[in-house]
């Protein structure tokens, strides 16, 4: 597609529910990133994929967070047993991912705003 698409845009969950957030990156982009942005803060890195391989998941805050990108395109971020502190905007970004100038320019989606009650 023309841009990075995320769904749902807004999600309200009761504490303890599982949620799944979807990211559809720009076609042909090798690299895909998930970020978490709390109110008034900068985005914080969660995880990074190169094609279907999850090369870095050091930013995932707990084992309740899980991300996958099984066919190297669409990615899903799953949060199990949601807690109130999980409330945030979850941003997905993609980049070409190849070496060379500008290949790692990030294009962000509009984000998924999660509110846990």
């Amino acid at each position: 597609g023309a841009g990075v698409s995320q769904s749902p845009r807004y999600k309200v969950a009761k504490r303890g529910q599982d949620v799944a957030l979807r990211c559809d990156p720009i076609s042909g982009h090798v690299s895909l990133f998930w970020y978490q942005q709390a109110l008034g803060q900068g985005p914080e890195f969660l995880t990074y994929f190169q094609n279907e391989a999850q090369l870095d998941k050091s930013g995932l805050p707990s084992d309740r967070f899980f991300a996958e990108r099984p066919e190297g395109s669409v990615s899903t971020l799953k949060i199990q047993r949601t807690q109130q502190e999980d409330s945030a905007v979850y941003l997905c970004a993609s980049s070409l991912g190849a070496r060379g100038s500008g290949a790692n320019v990030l294009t962000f989606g509009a984000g998924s705003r999660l509110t846990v009650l």
Partner: protein
Amino acid sequence: GIQVEQSPPDLILQEGANSTLRCNFSDSVNNLQWFHQNPWGQLINLFYIPSGTKQNGRLSATTVATERYSLLYISSSQTTDSGVYFCAVGEGVAGNQFYFGTGTSLTVIP
């Protein structure tokens, strides 16, 4: 990870004024990008600038990698420039681990 500090945290400008935003980072990087987050939350890439100077219309940016800082210049500011400006730096083999600063919140008043 790399520490990224941005200044000033908040800035209010009269339309038409110029401004300079600063980004300091704690370690050597091979990727640096400036973003504008509009009031609806969308992050837009402004510059990919690991070193050197670039200009795009009323915006320009300079990164001095050896001194670990980058500057974003906004000239003749417009109300549509309002929002939060983030600097993000990357390290690693392909600069894939990005760290964001806390941003500069800019308000341009007519």
